[in-house]
């Protein structure tokens, strides 16, 4: 994959994630106990042999910069190539919105490098994927553009791109829909093409007034290009609503998914390293069916839940079907069911919080209940 350049587009913002993306982009949303969404496409790139990744930043990118830093934790802090930041520049007197401009402004980065292919990934999907077969597929089919797709695991209210695909992978029709049915072939936001095809698409679209990559580039791909779908049959899912975020976190608790996502030979998911002690299980702790990250200290009961780093569960506290982000403190006798706690939430003694499996209760960052 030395001849493939990675482009990681972190610009997309999911309105339907509500408060989860207040002050952060979807890319830096904490996931599965110790990760952020961006770790998944970036680790997949690195594990596939991509050694040159341009990161297209959104305007609110402090949290993602703090996470990726030099790229060292992904092995991308290099003298030659490695991780390059491509920040947005808003020219004076240009009121145009959209994510296409940042791609357009940074075309020089793509043009002036010697890789033959561009693999563009957007950070809204969770997968641990080997991109090498995608490249072989692309070369074999002779496609102009290959889109990585997967069958939707269930009905979803995410808006997304679905395609009708022939047996050989040729995309016959493609549409952007506001909700997706189980089993439909949906885009995982990964596009592979030759560099000159990419440059041409972005340039042509932006210079003709295009604003939005999905609307003005992808939706019109079929007009002039041969587009193939590479089907990723492993676990994948998109994070687009609070419910999807919640369900995807809990999905990681299944041992088979956990192994596929995190223990695939030669394909670990990298993330920013933090020095946290091992989990301390105290006398009386009852933990089942859960993912627990380092730094946690548990006296109480935890079931079917994901605990991020440094969560403290006091004696008599009961946590069921919850996602508790970093630094959460659940005090004596508090009971939580179907709750998503953002970072550093404190639930004081004896409080009861309850959401529903189809509508988790969200508690904002640093709230004290």
């Amino acid at each position: 994959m030395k001849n493939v350049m990675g482009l990681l587009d972190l610009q997309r913002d999911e309105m339907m994630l509500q408060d989860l993306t207040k002050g952060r982009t979807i890319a830096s949303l904490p996931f599965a106990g110790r990760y952020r969404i961006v770790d998944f496409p970036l680790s997949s790139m690195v594990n596939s042999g991509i050694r040159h990744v341009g990161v297209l930043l959104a305007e609110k990118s402090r949290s993602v910069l703090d996470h990726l830093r030099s790229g060292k934790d992904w092995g991308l802090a290099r003298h030659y190539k490695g991780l390059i930041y491509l920040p947005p520049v808003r020219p004076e007197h240009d009121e145009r919105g959209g994510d296409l401009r940042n791609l357009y402004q940074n075309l020089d980065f793509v043009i002036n490098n010697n890789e033959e292919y561009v693999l563009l990934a957007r950070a809204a999907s969770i997968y641990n994927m080997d991109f090498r077969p995608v490249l072989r597929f692309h070369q074999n089919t002779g496609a102009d553009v290959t889109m990585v797709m997967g069958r939707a695991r269930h009905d979803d209210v995410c808006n997304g791109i679905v395609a009708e695909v022939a047996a050989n992978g040729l995309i016959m029709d493609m549409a952007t829909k506001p909700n997706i049915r189980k089993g439909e072939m949906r885009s995982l936001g990964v596009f592979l093409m030759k560099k000159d095809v990419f440059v041409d698409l972005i340039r042509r679209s932006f210079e003709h007034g295009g604003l939005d990559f999905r609307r003005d580039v992808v939706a019109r791909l079929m007009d002039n290009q041969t587009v193939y779908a590479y089907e990723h049959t492993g676990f994948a899912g998109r994070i687009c609503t609070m419910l999807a975020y919640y369900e995807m976190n809990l999905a990681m608790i299944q041992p088979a998914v956990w192994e596929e996502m995190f223990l695939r030979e030669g394909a670990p998911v990298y993330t920013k390293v933090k020095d946290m002690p091992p989990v301390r299980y105290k006398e009386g702790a009852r933990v089942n069916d859960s993912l627990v990250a380092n730094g946690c200290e548990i006296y109480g009961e935890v079931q079917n839940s994901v605990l991020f780093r440094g969560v403290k569960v006091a004696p008599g506290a009961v946590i069921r079907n919850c996602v508790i982000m970093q630094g959460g403190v659940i005090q004596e006798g508090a009971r939580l069911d179907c709750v998503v706690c953002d970072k550093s939430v404190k639930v004081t003694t004896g409080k009861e919080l309850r959401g529903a499996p189809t509508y988790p209760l969200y508690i904002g960052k640093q709230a004290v209940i």
Partner: protein
Amino acid sequence: MKIDCLAMILAGGQGSRLGALTNNVAKPAVPFGGKYRIIDFPLSNCVHSGIERVGVLTQYRPFALHNYVSDGAAWDLDAHYGGVYILPPYARAKGADWYRGTADAIYQNLNFIELSNPDYVLILSGDHIYTMDYSKMLDTHKRNKAEATIGVIEVPWEEASRFGIMETDEGGRITKFVEKPPEPKSNLASMGIYIFSAPFLRRYLEADAKNPHSSHDFGNDLIPKMLADRARLFSYPFVGYWKDVGTIESLWQANMDFLAKRPPIDIDGHWNILSSNPPVPPQYIGPEARVEQSLLNEGAMIFGNVERSVISLGVRIAKGARVTNSVIMPYATIGEGAVVDHAILAPHAEVAPGARVQGQANSIAVIAEGETVLPESATAQQAG
């Protein structure tokens, strides 16, 4: 560029009393506490004490240690003008020597000390579990205008004859040093932690190297010689948890100490123990698992019962297995229905389904790296 204090960690020892645990690695590289290796403790102490340049002297089975310490990035010791330096024995134009003793190891690296150009040299060993602010010891050394300062700790009188014992005057100046005295007159034991003023150390190392009768050891040779010369030797009393983990039982006990209601060292505080953090997922605790009074690292997968045990990364404990009072090192696996009690499992050890590993508090069972315990051989081991 002159620096204040250079630390030298003596990490070359085999630790033969750790038996099978040091078959493949030097003692400082032995895993500890579910996440750490023994050398994390002196390295983290250095970093938290503001010491930015550290030499690590290796000799016995150094690969794992070299690989682990690497460029020092895990301890933020990968700075341009500081950082960690791995110092194995080397060949010279006229022959080559192994490190023949603790003092000889430092002597052979005098050129490195010269290059670092420190005012003071801190000598540490890689076989103790403790947290200590070396900067306070250095302050004491400077205040006393000492030539050497030795870290000491009060040990129970009945154990004093197992240690190198210091006698001091009221000002902390060392008047006498006796290695393992049969009738100790003091209970201040040497911790094997020394601060020397650099030119003073150099003088004594050079003289010692020329002495054919010397065993080239700080405790046996250099300290007695310095005392005989009436050099300014002071003690620095340390108060806190300090545990030698040189034997199977003491290593096991130190691990168990961290499971107490109030662990002896706060591993989650401002003086946290820095360590390498491999890319492994959060631990998975299965539907029928039960985990209590234990320390578990990331990347572990638990379906069985774990009580009063320390579990490292990548460990798998199958359904119905019972692990109690044990230390399970990285990537060891324990099969369905197996029983492990009062044991240490070295990395990649395997206990087959239904097998039994049973030790006692005063006789911990050890399963070597990569070794497999089958149901029958476990019975044989019990008999033996």
